[in-house]
């Protein structure tokens, strides 16, 4: 597993191909199940096993939950889950246009702080970035049985 924190404007290439699948959701807790099911459908397509499917679901759930909890402190807003499917890997990016990556502040709403360690443990590559247009992205690359799978 590798993790990077890219500077503003440093992560998304202008030549990056459009995502194969893109799901845009309201930033509320109840939307996360839809994102999780979208990704489970992609894992099914790839024919990966139950363990990979469950691990990837957990990591994507954590990335989406981060967007829901932290991107829009005043409520509202949307986030988008993008996915690229290749024969031997799955790349998932969770993007929002909220307040960007901020230091963790202890509060009842902050959760247990396990989201990031779980994403790092399960993903083969994990990156975090914010670009000049205000898009914050958590991008995770998975392989079957890779990372924690």
């Amino acid at each position, binding site marked *: 597993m590798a993790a990077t924190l890219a500077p503003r404007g440093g992560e998304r290439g202008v030549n990056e191909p459009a995502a194969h699948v*893109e799901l845009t959701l309201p930033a509320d807790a109840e939307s996360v199940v839809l994102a999780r099911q979208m990704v489970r459908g992609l894992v099914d397509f790839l024919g990966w096993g139950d363990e990979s499917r469950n691990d990837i679901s957990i990591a994507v759930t954590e990335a989406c939950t981060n967007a829901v909890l932290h991107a829009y402190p005043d409520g509202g807003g949307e986030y988008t889950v993008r996915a690229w499917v290749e024969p031997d890997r799955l790349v998932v990016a969770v993007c929002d246009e909220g307040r960007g990556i901020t230091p963790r502040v202890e509060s009842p709403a902050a959760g247990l702080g396990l989201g990031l360690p779980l994403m790092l443990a399960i993903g083969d590559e994990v990156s975090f970035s914010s670009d000049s247009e205000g898009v914050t992205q958590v991008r995770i690359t998975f392989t079957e049985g890779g990372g924690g799978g």
Partner: protein
Amino acid sequence: MTSASTSARLVIRRPDLTANVLERVVAALAARADLPLDRLSDAQIASAAAAVAASRHMADGALNVEFDGEPGAVTVRIGPLPAGAAEQVVEESAVPGVGAIVERLVDRWSVDRRATGDESLSLAIVDRDGAGP
């Protein structure tokens, strides 16, 4: 299930992913809308059939689907589609001996035409025995 409504927008640019993704997303939405199992299944089958047919009409290969879920009802809108394609999608979902699956399984379908000349196909699936709108 809560009383909150759910909306989502999905873009699929690889037709071979359509069935896997759409069936799971629609099932999750229908479950959240408290649709009974038979209606959930109807929603999955009708949406997938319509989407697969619709993807054959997309010049750029990108299929756009919007979802709305509320207690007792799910609406799936597929489009924009080229003019005239929405009704063809319904017809092309036909299975020998069964007829047009989309027409048989959904409670209402309609074509929404826009001033720009394109259109979208709207499918509504409701809980017939419950409190669906």
